[in-house]
């Protein structure tokens, strides 16, 4: 077992897969010689050569289209989109092509492409380097959508994604690349080496797609969240002094309804937390699911704590960010209701 941060864990996942499976190729802007702007592919081109770890032109639509063609021709491409905010030029290739090849050809053609892309704010990235567009992709049938919250899951889920026969959009919450951020930007950074999930096996293992994880047991209220917000929620629970159960959704599509709803039915209260904007956000799907499955067990209306419905502002990112105080307030409100 080694200590890894999320960058190293993701790098290790690709290293393991490049080594094990000659069909795996990596492509993206700056991923080759340089090793990626976040260093996630560092050293891979040196080790596996420039035919397997390819620098590409700055063309997200071209990267995803080329990955589709490679996938159709028997490779397992892992495409990096440098920031989730840059993915939109490739959106048509994801929605109309990647997600539907299998369906429209009745199973004759498919492309097992993994699209890795850093998301989320809190890095002074302004409105073009901070977005969390997961719900735009969960609305598209035919792709799987994943967002890990720690190095162990990051590696295991990325291996599962690369091995999956279906396309996966793999969001990497970049604020927690180096440590489990608890929502307070003024405190010194905590490294992953101090966290239990910073323990990452060197070799091959999988974390299954489609399974949520209970990260904290509790009896009062359930927090449904994912990515960076798992750690922020943990801090908020401490702040609010409630005995909350925290579920890390991990896979947004397909959704592990059973794990989520078993918890909510047990506690009878629920707060949904995500960093993305609220309106038509992924939280709406979670709330609807909870309402359908747990209505007769609910003691209080389900609350959402999210980014505001504005672009992510550069100067006011901590006012925008749904930090521990806002989550704690929602927890208290849910506890006081009824």
């Amino acid at each position, binding site marked *: 077992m080694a200590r890894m941060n999320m960058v190293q864990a993701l790098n290790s996942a690709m290293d393991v897969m490049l080594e094990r499976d000659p069909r795996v190729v990596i492509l993206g802007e700056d991923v080759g010689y340089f090793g990626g702007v976040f260093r996630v592919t560092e050293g891979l081109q040196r080790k596996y050569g420039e035919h397997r770890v390819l620098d590409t032109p700055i063309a997200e639509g071209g990267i995803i289209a*080329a990955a*589709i063609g490679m996938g159709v021709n028997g490779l397992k491409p892992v495409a990096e989109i440098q920031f989730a905010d840059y993915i939109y030029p490739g959106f*048509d290739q994801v929605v109309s092509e990647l997600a539907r090849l299998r369906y*429209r050809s009745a199973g004759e053609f498919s492309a097992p492409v993994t699209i890795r892309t850093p998301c989320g704010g809190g890095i002074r990235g302004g409105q073009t380097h901070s977005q969390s567009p997961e719900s735009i992709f969960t609305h598209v049938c035919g792709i799987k959508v994943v967002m890990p919250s720690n190095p162990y899951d990051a590696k295991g889920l990325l291996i599962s994604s690369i091995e999956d026969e279906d396309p996966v959009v793999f969001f990497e919450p970049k604020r927690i690349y180096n440590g489990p951020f608890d929502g307070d930007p003024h405190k010194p950074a905590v490294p992953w080496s101090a966290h239990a999930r910073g323990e990452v096996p060197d070799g091959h293992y999988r974390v299954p797609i*489609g399974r949520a994880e209970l990260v904290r047991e509790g009896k009062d209220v359930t927090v449904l969240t994912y990515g960076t917000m798992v750690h922020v929620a943990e801090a908020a629970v401490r702040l609010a002094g409630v005995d909350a159960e925290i579920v890390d959704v991990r896979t947004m599509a397909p959704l592990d309804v059973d794990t989520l709803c078993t918890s909510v039915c047990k506690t009878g209260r629920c707060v949904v937390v995500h960093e993305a904007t609220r309106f038509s956000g992924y939280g709406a799907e979670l709330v609807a699911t909870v309402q359908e499955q747990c209505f007769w067990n609910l003691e209080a209306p389900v609350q959402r704590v999210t980014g505001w419905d504005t672009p992510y502002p550069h100067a006011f990112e901590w006012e925008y960010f749904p930090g521990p105080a806002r989550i704690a307030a929602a927890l208290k409100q849910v506890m006081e209701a009824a």
Partner: protein
Amino acid sequence: MTPRSRLHVPAPPARPGQEPDFSYVQISPAGAVNRPDVTASVRDIESLALEMVRVLDDEHRAVGPWNPHLEAAELQVALRHMLLTRLFDDRMQKIQRQGRISFYIKSTGEEAVAVAQGMALQPGDMLFPSYRQQGLHVVRGRNLVELMCQCLSNTHDMCKGRQMPIMYHWGNGNIFTISGNLATQFPQAVGWAMAAAIKGEDRIAASWIGEGASAEADFHYGMTFAAVYQAPVILNLVNNQWAISTFQGFAGGEHKTFAQRGPGYGMPGIRVDGNDFLAVYAVTQWAAQRARQSGGPTLIEHVTYRAAAHSTSDDPARYRPKEEWRAWPLGDPVTRLKQHLIALGEWSAERHARLEKELEAHVTACWKEAESYGTLTAGPALDPLTMFEDVYKEMPPNLVRQRDELRALRSAAAAAERPQAAPPVAKKG
């Protein structure tokens, strides 16, 4: 007066009621264009993008350095494929007009492009067509019944009722699934070709795009990636003059030829008479040979004319002269190949008429068989529950639940239609 900026809004040379005018189409004499070695550098062969490669002359002879010197038997096969494509199209159009299929797209006037290219490529080469290259299926020996069943969305439909008519695919024939979204296949073909090179194969890819769709970013992505990695791919731009109602000027064809974009990206651009079977065959052979020996991609502009409507939902009489095709200076590809064979003494009007009859009977027989597997309106149809399959390799829980829900609804509806005396249907799905 002070100068001020004005928009240039392209206008075609003729609209309904006006005389067709194709004086804007620059045509080289047959045999006039030099055929460079396939290893020639892009810089040295830029003129190929301005001229027009032509082999068949006005006397129906094959002339010049691009003559591929095909055997008469091969030319007869080519004529058969082109004629079959045309008769198939004609029949499907009629069938659509009778309301028996919902939609159709003909390739009339452009048959030489798909047929010549299909014949010049190897069976293992992967084809990423747009929606007007049905000739590729014909060349690769596809049973027309399968294409017809797709158009009918019946029990034998390769797409299981999920796609509009003509959105074919053929895994075993190495023909990719057609997207209803334009241009997306162009950069995908490049990715496929990159993978072939990464794997060290000598298979190449080919893709087709219309001149209209070449305005999409996907065209640019495909050209850039192909040129950057020198991918083994043939990128075909079929300039059939019309994108529904907008003429080729709206895609940028007024100022430069489309083929000239090739050298702009760093690959050869070849402008070819798209209605000249021999010329299309020869340039394809040239580009394929170049790609197979690591010479990289080629952009081929096929200058042709969309003789039919864009689709069965379109009425070209509203935006172009009715008889414009008659004035098209490059003629009819089927007639030109037929006359060439006759000039060679390898064909005759009688043989042509016999072939036409035979192929028409074949199309009729295929249609009868296709209809026996069901029609969109009268059935039998596939089980609607199949709509939940192939969204993913394994059906996820939400789709299992939704499929069960639809199954229960259908069972309940069926039970309600049964006579009262019938036993109730079990609730279990």
